[in-house]
């Protein structure tokens, strides 16, 4: 009898539990920070939020950065997007222009306007509304082995030509084999797109004119492609097949002396894989990005995915509420500390907070953070494929990036096609792409 009673009780409890779980509103968030410690912090934040919101269940999923756009668009095509997600700023604008996003002015307003780092106020705006709030800004950085340059009496490169010459001089050969390359860069399509935008900016160039017509046949682009040809001679022969993480590995284990497209995240790889006695900023130093022959100032890529909330998401309001909770310092600082040199604060007050500064990695690698903040202050950073903030009004940059046309242009050139011909071919393809989508008159 007792056994039967216990069984019935267990069944009733299980049914009630299942019903309770079913009643909860599940809010799915896709984000690009996949390092285990960051995911753990996000899950802790989600658990803390759920304690005060027992009717909501927050599910945080990590997506590889390079896969983000493809997975988001595939989810949209299948009619099953998450409630909120990270996206490139150009993705956010593209989605906002297509009416897929819910405005997040309420989320943006939860951070006092003068507390927001200046460069990120207009990260994703469309028709006067805010559609994205960046989770954390970072700038791409140029890293070089200070000790190796000093050993060979080389100066830190300032121009494109300097970079090629220094990379060539840093190459080391032993028994007929290259044991160290002067420079490493990734050939991952996303990063080639980033490189094109960033290098073009350092060369005073642009990808589109004021009317939105591509400008790939202009002199700065041709010079850029000529530069890629020169880089191809000093980079490891397989660079077009090297992933983003391969280049960090090359730098950390001494296979390369300089890394052009590095990020603060790389510090973690240096600490982990470089010999202990050299794993510090005295050996792995950062410098300004090199300037092209037609350019005047350095430029870097802004790595700052805005949080976007999907308009038709059932948990849209809850997602915004959770994100307000996420940006509170007690939750935000542990998140930033999970990858301390890469995840910088979008809020000035947090950057100044003693609690934020109380981190050994931040103390040790301060020069890397200072370099990124210098680019923020000088407005030398722009999102991928954006050479001017006005480009953010063009809702088709996502399609241009996804098409791989700019990647093909660079690789055509690297493979030997004359730069002007590669540029003209890409120009025609981008024009066709934009015309077919109704963004450009034929």
């Amino acid at each position, binding site marked *: 009898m007792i056994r039967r009673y216990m069984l019935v009780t267990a069944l009733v409890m299980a049914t009630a539990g299942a019903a309770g779980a079913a009643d909860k509103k599940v809010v799915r968030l896709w984000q690009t920070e996949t390092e285990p410690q960051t995911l753990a912090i996000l899950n802790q934040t989600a658990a803390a939020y759920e304690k005060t919101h027992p009717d909501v269940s927050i599910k945080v999923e990590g997506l590889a950065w390079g896969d983000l756009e493809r997975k988001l668009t595939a989810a949209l*095509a299948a009619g099953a997007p998450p409630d909120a997600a990270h996206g490139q700023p150009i993705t956010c604008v593209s989605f906002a222009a297509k009416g897929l996003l819910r405005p997040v002015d309420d989320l943006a307003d939860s951070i006092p306007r003068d507390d927001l780092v200046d460069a990120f106020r207009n990260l994703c705006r469309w028709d006067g509304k805010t559609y994205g709030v960046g989770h954390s800004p970072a700038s791409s950085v140029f890293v070089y082995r200070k000790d190796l340059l000093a050993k060979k009496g080389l100066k830190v490169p300032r121009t494109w030509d300097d970079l090629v010459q220094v990379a060539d001089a840093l190459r080391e050969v032993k028994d007929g084999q290259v044991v160290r390359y002067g420079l490493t860069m990734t050939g*991952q*399509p996303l990063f080639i797109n980033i490189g094109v935008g960033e290098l073009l900016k350092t060369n005073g160039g642009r990808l589109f004119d004021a009317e939105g017509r591509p400008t790939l046949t202009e002199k700065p682009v041709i010079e850029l492609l000529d530069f890629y040809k020169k880089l191809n001679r000093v980079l490891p022969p*397989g660079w077009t*097949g090297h992933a*983003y993480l391969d280049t960090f590995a090359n730098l950390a284990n001494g296979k390369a002396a300089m890394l052009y497209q590095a990020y603060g995240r790389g510090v973690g790889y240096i600490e982990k894989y470089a010999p202990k006695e050299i794993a510090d900023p005295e050996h792995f130093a950062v410098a300004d990005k090199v300037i092209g022959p037609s350019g005047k100032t350095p430029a870097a890529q802004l790595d700052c995915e805005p949080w976007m909330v999907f308009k038709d998401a059932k948990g849209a309001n809850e997602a915004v509420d959770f994100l307000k909770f996420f940006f509170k310092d007690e939750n935000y600082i542990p998140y930033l500390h999970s990858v301390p040199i890469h995840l910088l604060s979008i809020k000035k007050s947090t950057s100044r907070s003693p609690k934020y500064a109380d981190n050994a990695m931040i103390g040790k690698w301060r020069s890397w953070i200072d370099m990124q903040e210098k680019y923020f202050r000088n407005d030398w950073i722009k999102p991928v494929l954006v050479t001017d903030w006005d480009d953010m009004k063009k809702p088709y940059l996502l399609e241009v990036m996804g098409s791989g046309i700019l990647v093909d242009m660079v690789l055509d050139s690297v493979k030997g096609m004359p730069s002007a011909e590669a540029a003209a071919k890409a120009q025609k393809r981008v024009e066709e792409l934009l015309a077919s989508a109704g963004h450009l008159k034929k």
Partner: protein
Amino acid sequence: MLWILPALVLIGSLILYPVGYAIWLSFLDKHSFFPAERWVGLGNYLKIAWDVEFWDSLWKSVVYAAATTGLQLVLGVAAALVLHATFRGRTVIRALVLFPYMIPTIVAVIVWRWLLNETYGVVDHLLLRVGLVREPIVWLGVDHMMTSLIAVSVWQFTPFVIVSVLARLQTIPLELYEAARVDGAAPWARFRHITLPQLRAVLFIVVLLRSIWMFTKFDTVWLWGEGAGAGREIRTLPIYAYMRTFTYYQAGFGAALAVIMFLLLMAATLVYFRLYWREEEAVA
């Protein structure tokens, strides 16, 4: 009629509807995730006819399918003949040979990408060590991307040919070989006049299936080129159709590419069947 209804429902919902929908989609200008669509008739097909990227990806598909199918066939038949012979440890070797076909594609691709990496991969290390090359071969760079993909695909899919051919070899009556031996036929003559004709039917199916599967192969090709700019060197037709649909967001254009792929395969299959039947009639 009622008895075949379940089969008809299954065929209709799993084959006819998707194919029909893809054909319908190919006549539309449709964004990949917006409901708005516009009838363009043969517009997508006309665009494809003038699209340089299409012809380039078609050529890459043909090269990939022909090279991998041919190599699988030659190596598969050779390996099956070896495994048909009697030797110690044959059962273990037969089981091991199946291994590449059984492991998931993602695992095979990751492992081979590590092995072929020119900075830390074992393959280049060994080639350098034995002095076969003076500089590492960049297997995953623009120049060798297709070659390395073909090599890995052949490694992965040859066991299918081995198993199919081996199964048929085991059913060939031994008396045929004994009679040939008595008549003084050399090994090559026995292979040419007994083994090959006996394998005709199975080879027909193997070539048909493998060439269709390699022409439409997506996962191995996609994973091999993913995350690398050099991936464009292996942008075959299925990859291009995917890109048009999910990175250009042109679902209609992508569907038209898929329909063309389907029609090309249908045409090739019909020609292949015709040739086979003509051959059969001649033999008969």
